[in-house]
């Protein structure tokens, strides 16, 4: 059951442009990869909570991985060990691990957060996923790739070619040979997700799941603020916070995204 919590930050690690905050969660707090926490990010006139995907630390503890995008996320990155975070969670629908011969994770930027958690779940099931992760440049990664390389088959991309493949995570994905039946799990900017959906075609969209980022107010499905267009006759919307944030690519109307 989701609930409101105040949890202490017990460890903080900075990996390039992102800050990992490991949380001391109450016993019995259970979450699935792809679910998120809705976090209070200080005052200064910021009244709404901010959504952050649950990730895991190297030891497998639940954590957040925050990339500064504005005032709220910057406030979060500035928290110290011992301080407390106020959040609602775990919220939303996470990833389902499909029955497939190959599992490919595609991360753009901070989109790595839920996928690292997913990779841990896959390892527990004796699956070895491959992960394509894209960032702007080498500095953005910090030392996280060295750790991740022990957790999955990792390949990196940077726009400027300073580390790994030159291009985006998507370009990297396109460049690799895949079996037809590979299951894909993606999280990253909207452009990346829609580019991938176009590339996959109808059949591929059946086996691809994406975690979408939409601005949120309530985070629990009550306000309908986080609407994403879905493929149904009525041209309606789903609430990213409750019916998502993870959707099968076929469920979303990419034309209207």
């Amino acid at each position, binding site marked *: *059951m*989701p*609930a*409101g919590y105040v949890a202490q930050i017990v460890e903080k690690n900075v990996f390039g442009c992102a800050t990992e905050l490991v949380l001391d969660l109450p016993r019995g707090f259970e979450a699935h990869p792809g679910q998120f926490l809705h976090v*209070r990010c200080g005052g200064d*006139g*910021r*009244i*709404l*909570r901010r959504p952050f995907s649950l990730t895991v630390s190297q030891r497998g503890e639940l954590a957040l991985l925050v990339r500064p995008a504005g005032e709220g996320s910057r406030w979060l990155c500035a928290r110290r060990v011992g301080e407390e975070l106020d959040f*609602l969670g775990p919220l939303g629908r996470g990833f389902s691990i499909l029955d497939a011969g190959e599992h490919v994770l595609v991360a753009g930027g901070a989109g790595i957060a839920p996928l690292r958690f997913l990779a841990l779940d896959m390892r527990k099931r004796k699956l070895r996923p491959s992960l394509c992760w894209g960032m702007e440049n080498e500095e953005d990664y910090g030392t996280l790739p060295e750790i991740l390389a022990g957790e999955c088959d990792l390949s990196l991309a940077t726009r400027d070619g300073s580390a790994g493949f030159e291009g985006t995570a998507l370009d990297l994905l396109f460049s690799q040979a895949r079996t037809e039946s590979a299951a894909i799990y993606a999280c990253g900017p909207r452009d990346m997700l829609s580019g991938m959906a176009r590339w996959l075609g109808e059949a591929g969209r059946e086996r691809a799941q994406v975690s979408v980022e*939409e*601005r*949120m*107010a*309530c*985070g*629990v*499905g*009550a*306000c*309908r*603020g*986080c*609407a*994403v*267009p879905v493929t149904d006759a*009525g*041209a*309606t*919307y789903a609430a990213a916070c*409750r019916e998502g944030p993870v959707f099968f690519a076929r469920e979303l109307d990419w034309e*209207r995204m």
Partner: protein
Amino acid sequence: MEAGLRTELAGIRMQNPVMVCSGTWGNGREYAEWIDPGALGGIITKSVTLRPCPGNPPPRIWETPSGMLNSIGLENRGLAAFLEEDLPWIAGFGVPVFVNVAGFSEEEYAEVAAEVCASGLAAAVELNISCPNVKKGGLHFSSSHEDAARMVSRVRERADLPVFVKLSPRLNDLKGMCAAVARAGADGLSLVNTIPAMSIDVERAVPRLGNVTGGLSGPAMHPVAVLAVWEAYQSVGIPIVGMGGIWGWEDAVEMIMAGATAVAVGTVNFVDPGAPLAVVEGIRGFMTRKGVARVGELVGLAHRGGFRDEGKGRAPGSG
């Protein structure tokens, strides 16, 4: 002290004066996982329209200093689904349900209101003639006193429950409007809806909301809402539900002192699902501290010169 929180609104008995605002609490299911809906004074449901309404294109929300803009655009599954699935469920908690009604023509409002009344499950109808987020309908129905009054009498003819009229604070003559809808048969007022507003992304030079314009809610608009309640209280005798930027019990008490018989909390639910019940507790504590026996004594108190009786300014804890 429990008796002290009880109140009556257009003949509807409430265990306390704190409700939740239309559109900020879904149709109850989401927040029933967080708080007991049966502890609320009342529940105002999300605007329902005759037919399903998909709502506006995203982005639908944008945060502003101490406030937020929304352009949800009346997204709902339509009257039939509401009457079949949502209303019976939410009515099961035993607190009065105010059904917020919207539409795209006078006939639609009247039709929806009539069916809501016929269901036997609602306590009142709240007419949303102040939604800033739909091109046709919404605010259009309160563009003149005559239009609004005609709408109210059309609905009044078909509704056998109390009818509350929800108004925008952006009216040239709020007092005149309140008087016009009261004359047309409104049993109460809901003040206020969000304030029409917008925001532009200067890097891209485009509006932030998919719908271009939206409505401002939250603490930033609270003083505007207090004034609206204050003015309405001066101009009409029908009861007022005060809403707009209530964040804690002080804001609620302020609304009541401005003239609201009950209050509704909206945007704060998104931040703290426990907020409505915290407001109830806060009002209770304030009444104890001030030695106020019944919450009704606070209604419009600021119009009557405030706390004057020496005995009512006692120290905390002494009540």
